[in-house]
């Protein structure tokens, strides 16, 4: 076996190998039903049976890696885009409101109508902030739809 007694990485150990057939859980409709029924079980002792333990461990390793690699990155981008959209929208609103103090601004069109009010510097800044929040919200919408399709699949 190539065992070297004074090197721990070259020692051999007894291992117990268990094989079970789980292809029906992944390939058949009954497999999905079985997993759903398992989820509903109130009796937690069923999860301690060797067969279920192996199935859960196999599915957990397989699917947790897929979730981490496929669902997590777009979700992190989505969170960032939502924060950017909210902050940029508030910056844009407070910029317009601070330059047009006393004007009634209860609707989004009120803000748009006041976009070109003020000096050239103010208008340039207004336009920049409007564009920023517009792009942030569009980015947010695209990621929202991508994430939703990902989750539904």
């Amino acid at each position, binding site marked *: 076996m190539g065992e070297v007694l004074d090197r721990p990485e070259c020692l051999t150990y007894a291992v117990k190998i268990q094989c079970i057939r789980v292809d029906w859980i992944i390939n058949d409709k009954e497999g999905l039903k079985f997993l759903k029924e398992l989820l509903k079980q109130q009796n937690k002792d069923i999860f301690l049976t060797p067969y279920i333990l192996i199935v859960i461990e196999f599915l957990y390793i397989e699917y*947790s890696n897929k*979730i*981490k690699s496929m*669902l*997590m990155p777009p*979700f992190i981008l*989505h*969170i960032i885009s*939502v*924060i950017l*959209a*909210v902050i940029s*929208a508030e910056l844009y*609103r407070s910029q317009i409101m601070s330059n047009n103090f006393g004007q009634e*601004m*209860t*609707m*989004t*069109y009120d*803000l748009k109508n006041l976009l070109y009010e003020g000096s050239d510097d103010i208008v340039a800044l207004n336009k920049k902030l409007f564009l920023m929040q*517009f792009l942030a*919200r*569009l980015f*947010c*919408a695209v990621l*929202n739809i991508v*994430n*939703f399709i990902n*989750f539904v699949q």
Partner: protein
Amino acid sequence: MDAIILGTNLVVTFSLFGNVKLVPLRVFESILVVAIFFKSLYFLRLIGEIAPLIDIIFTIIADIKYFMAIYLISQLAFVFAFYSIGKNQM
């Protein structure tokens, strides 16, 4: 949770192209932020060190629901009692 995120995000996005009241729009934005941060718990449950903590928190919330019911009833009792007494000082 997904439906809430999808719905509120669509409202927030389409407010760009329509005339929407700012007060409800901010409410939608706040719901979106809360919902999306709570959804991150789903992904955090994949991390071995964090998963038990999240499970514990939700189990505690489920276990204390009857305690919270009694607590809320007693809170409401004092809220209305002090509201009534407080009106004497105005």
